[in-house]
């Protein structure tokens, strides 16, 4: 290991003090290399999740059962592309390029949220994603609005506002189904049954197995542990499910008066690891579609670059 130069030591002290005082770190500030690379990894993975996350929902745009629902879904998928753009911009303030990050996504060197490797089999899945998947995302992301890195925190403020809107719309979609015909109600229940456990997995591995957690919390990138956030999410969802008139697929779900939290059953971590490794139902399909869109679009990007080069001077 190289020794830290005295001036670097001073810079590190300034950084530590700023984090301790809950000040924001900005792109031009000195930061430890580990902090920078952790953030690049996390923000990129977040951006990739927005982009891959468009697919399971876009799968239903052309089949949405009413024009109102179709408009809502299109707007949502559009917002996700927009969130991807904010997040790639936030990552770029750390000295990486969008192209570089997309390349890492396409080659499997960077990950995206494992939830998007599950298929959307019915229209009700669109509602379950809105309620549960976006709900879990919001639970994760609201604390990130206070993340120590300024550009990421500010991106999260914008993302969370739009995300909560989607979540309410997803919930309302499920409510309409739950209170609809028996076939619609069954469709809603089936979707919740399939999306509940994968949504709980979105908070990541249990605290004692989470590789990056301790350091991220010390740097105030993360504010709460995986298990803490997961518990918070379960506590929010149980009464919401009841209001929906739907059940959650967990026989161990029970109120614990001592902890004042809902107890819940064990998560199938083997499945989680399996999906993470690439063996989920849609891993191959998702990445292939993304790569194909990118490859098929190469000539368009080349044309735009060639045109800009030719007309650079009289662009104004």
């Amino acid at each position, binding site marked *: 290991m190289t020794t830290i130069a005295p001036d670097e030591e001073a810079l590190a002290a300034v950084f530590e003090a700023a984090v301790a005082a809950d000040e924001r770190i900005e792109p031009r500030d000195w930061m430890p290399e580990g902090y920078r690379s952790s953030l690049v990894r996390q923000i990129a993975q977040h951006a990739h999740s927005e*982009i891959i996350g*468009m*697919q399971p929902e*876009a799968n239903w*745009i*052309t*089949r*949405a*059962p*009413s*024009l*109102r*629902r*179709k*408009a809502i879904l*299109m*707007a949502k*998928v*559009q917002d996700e*592309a*927009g969130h*991807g*753009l904010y997040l*790639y911009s936030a990552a770029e303030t750390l000295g990486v390029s969008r192209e570089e990050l997309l390349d890492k996504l396409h080659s499997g060197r960077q990950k995206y949220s494992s939830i998007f490797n599950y298929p959307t089999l019915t*229209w009700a899945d669109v509602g379950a994603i809105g309620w549960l998947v976006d709900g879990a995302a919001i639970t994760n992301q609201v604390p990130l609005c206070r993340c120590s890195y300024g550009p990421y925190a500010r991106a999260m403020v914008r993302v969370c506002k739009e995300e909560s809107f989607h979540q309410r719309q997803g919930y309302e*979609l499920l409510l*309409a*189904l739950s209170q*609809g*015909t028996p*076939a*619609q109600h069954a469709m809603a229940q089936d979707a919740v049954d399939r999306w509940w456990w994968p949504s709980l997995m979105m908070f990541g591995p249990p605290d004692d197995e989470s590789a990056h957690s301790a350091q991220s919390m010390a740097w105030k990138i993360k504010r709460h542990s995986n298990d803490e956030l997961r518990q918070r999410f379960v506590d929010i969802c149980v009464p919401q499910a009841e209001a929906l008139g739907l059940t959650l697929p967990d026989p161990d779900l029970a109120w614990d008066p001592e902890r004042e939290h809902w107890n819940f059953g064990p998560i199938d971590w083997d499945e989680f690891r399996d999906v993470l490794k690439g063996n989920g139902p849609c891993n191959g399909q998702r990445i292939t*579609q993304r790569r*194909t*869109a*990118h490859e*098929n*679009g*190469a*000539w*368009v*990007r*080349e*044309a*735009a*670059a*060639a*045109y*800009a080069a*030719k*007309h650079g001077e009289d662009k104004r």
Partner: protein
Amino acid sequence: MKTETPAFVAALSLGDDALVLSHRLGEWAGHAPVLEEEVALANIALDLLGQARVLLSLVGDEDELAYLREERAFRNVQLVEQPNGDFAHTIARQLYFSTYQELMYEQLAQGDGPLAPLAAKAVKEVAYHRDHAEQWTLRLGDGTEESRTRMQRGLDALWRYTGELFAPIEGTQVDPAPLREAWTARIGSVLDRATLTVPQGPQRGAWTAGAGRQGLHTEPFGRMLAEMQHLHRSHPGATW
């Protein structure tokens, strides 16, 4: 559906155009060449869907009209139902249609018919769609050799569906002759700036003279409707 007065036929024709093109653009979600285009294409699709909902609601129940009519009852022009093809093909379709739609809505907005308020709002959206299509026509036409070839191919392939845009629509009081003149001049100037050639062939085929407006469509349209209507039709009477 209410009785087929000219005003209703007009709203249905323009509403179907917007509905069908919006659907086609929705198929791009998750497949666009750059993220910025994911946003732009969805944005245009949403504007069009918004227009369709207003127009169809003038005629009857929007969902009944969108989901329970069969192919022969749709009044959209054949141009908007054409499959997306590659990005250049989609842009060619956008260029032809948005130029037409802007001119049409400008005319309608100036009139005092029932469509004037909708047209006055929509013309602002459509001007943006036209600008988007023109910018891409320039980039692709004057970009690389490959993009130029693809753009020209898209323009040529869709040319035969453009004549139908100028069949008079009963109930709109829009004179198609000056519309056609303005459209032809605008397209000519854009293609010229993009170093592209205005296609030479006929602007109609044996089956395409005003055909979509009369409910005569092309083969891909039925398949598109099958996908669009399937879920709604599977649950008769349900609300969503």
